[in-house]
């Protein structure tokens, strides 16, 4: 591999890692603050992608579709928290797993009823539908760079929200000591609703912005779910910063594993996870 190729692969892994972070951030947030294991997280990614496809064909604009889709995802997250999840915060993790496992099937079926089982594509917005030539026969789609930029912006926003705002302070307080926070007169139920809606919205946004390059198809959620869990476990369950570092690591290992050690490409990421857990059983940034 020459140096130019190395840089391109580095770009590939960065871009993949950032997308993984978007996906995993919501999962780790929901676990860290409410202690809920959410297996249905991949389904929100899938629903986001289908929403993007459906709304983009209605409005003829992906940007508008993402705005409306985000609002719908927030509403869905809020409703799910209110109807189901808040009754499960004090239950065993196994109950939560059963609930969210059932939700996977429900969402797949709803998707099938609403939109069918076809493979769909979402057109890349005209403005960014071009490529930058990198070598004599390889170019890089600008839209991929846009995705990375959006991911970086959201990561930054998330960081500011949690560490610099009043709401973020309440969220952290709630995660740290629930009873004490409630005793101080903070509406913890409201905070939980907000955090859950935020987590769902993050997964849905990841699905929406990835839809033009990933296509939209049944079962797309389950394929990303496992990677999400790997990222969350490596980063330390509940740590958003850990998720970012872990996602970038997974991106690197996956990309270079595929190229340099194709025989073990399928295992490389899991070997990374095993290695990290051996030295840090609670992940890199356990809170």
């Amino acid at each position: 591999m020459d140096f130019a190729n190395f840089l391109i692969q580095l770009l590939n892994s960065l871009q993949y890692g950032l997308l993984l972070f978007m996906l995993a951030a919501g999962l780790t947030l929901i676990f860290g603050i409410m202690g809920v294991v959410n297996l249905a997280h991949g389904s929100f990614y899938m629903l986001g992608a289908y929403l993007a496809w459906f709304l983009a064909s209605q409005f003829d604009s992906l940007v508008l579709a993402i705005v409306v889709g985000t609002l719908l995802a927030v509403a869905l997250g809020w409703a799910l928290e209110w109807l189901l999840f808040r009754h499960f915060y004090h239950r065993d993790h196994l109950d939560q797993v059963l609930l969210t496992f059932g939700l996977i099937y429900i969402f797949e079926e709803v998707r099938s009823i609403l939109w069918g089982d076809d493979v769909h594509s979402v057109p890349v917005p005209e403005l960014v539908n071009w490529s930058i030539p990198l070598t004599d026969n390889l170019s890089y789609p600008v839209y991929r760079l846009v995705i990375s930029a959006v991911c970086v912006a959201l990561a930054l926003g998330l960081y500011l929200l949690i560490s610099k705002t009043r709401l973020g302070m309440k969220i952290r307080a709630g995660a740290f000591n629930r009873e004490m926070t409630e005793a101080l007169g903070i509406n913890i139920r409201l905070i939980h609703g907000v955090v859950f809606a935020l987590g769902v919205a993050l997964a849905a946004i990841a699905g929406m912005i990835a839809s033009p390059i990933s296509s939209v198809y049944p079962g797309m959620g389950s394929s990303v779910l496992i990677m999400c869990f790997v990222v969350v476990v490596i980063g330390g369950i509940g740590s958003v910063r850990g998720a970012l570092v872990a996602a970038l690591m997974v991106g690197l290992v996956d990309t270079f594993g595929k190229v340099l050690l194709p025989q073990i490409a399928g295992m490389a990421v899991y070997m990374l996870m095993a290695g990290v857990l051996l030295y840090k059983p609670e992940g890199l940034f356990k809170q």
Partner: protein
Amino acid sequence: MTTRRLVLTRSAAVIGAASSGLLLPQIVRAQSDKVRVGFMLPYTGTFAQLGVAIENGFRMALNEQGGKLGGREVEFFKVDDESNPAKGIENANRLVQRDKVDVLVGTVHSGVQMGIHKVARDSGVLNLIPNAGVHVATRAQCSPNVFRTSFSNSQPTLALGKAMVERGHKKAVWITWNYAAGEEAFEGFEQSYTAAGGTIVKKLGLPFPNVEFQALLTEIASLKPDAVACFFAGGGAAKFLRDFHAAGLSKNIQLYGSGFLTEGVLEAAGPAADGVLTTMHYSDALDTPRNKKFRLDYAKTFKAQPDVYAVQGYDTGLLLVKGANAVKGDLSSKKALYAAMEGATIDSPRGQWTMSKAHNPIQDMYLRKVENKENKVIGIAQKAVADPATGCRMG
């Protein structure tokens, strides 16, 4: 206590069912006046539409005979296999033991097929495979009572090599998912491409169903091959076509593939798929009177456009009709039935094909080029392609 008693009774029932199945592998079939046909196909999940298309095609072939098999009425049974390999044996047994079917038609997913295959070999029930291309079913574990009407996984790619070298593409990279179907497709490609004088520069793979192709596309660009050959299907195929195009590779590198690359995904892939060359045993756009009539009849009956899966279902029906007619509906005279099916020539919408000794079609493979979201047939890539049937001993 109730719970424990319930558990006990249930286990007893399960053990009872299992042991009776063990003790009586040969079910005595009530010789009713109706032929019992069982569909074990995916009716839910990713492959749901394939299951429906296969059943439609099968019923259409029977309807052309007035809905009868060798003069006897037909009764249908259905089991949704959910494309779930874990339930393959259980579901097949439901049709064979509970419904006592004479014929089991199924299925799409190769993993589930292995479950059916075990049940078919143990019970001796006639099994017609309308899609799953898993090699062993007509190779090392071939069986007198198992017939495939679709393809083996390496059949389409067996026709690919010659077509590529003829177009001057002598250096190629192969890429697929690292799973059984991908490996089997590679076997066909490797054999035909090296025999035609081509060189495989590198074999690339990624875990199924991973769709993060970017790293491998960068690798392909640095290898600068004449062509890329691949095996992908479904949603992953659409993404691969788009990513390949977006990376600018389609400008200088011709993309080839086993035909499933461009089945059912052309709408999603859009212009990115234009110019891609694939080999397969059928194309919707096949311009023959036989195919046109089939497509018209199918569209009239089912208010939907048929695809390759509908054709395979239809051919499964045609094959069974041939067999049943030869024995005048007496499906219990197995020797004569199997002999008739083995010697059958099927007048299919895909073109005429014959059954091989290992019970897999010997069929023409078409070379197809994607133009305006259609697999345009540009010729026959190879005539009468047969699966090597390595290790098959009937008996």
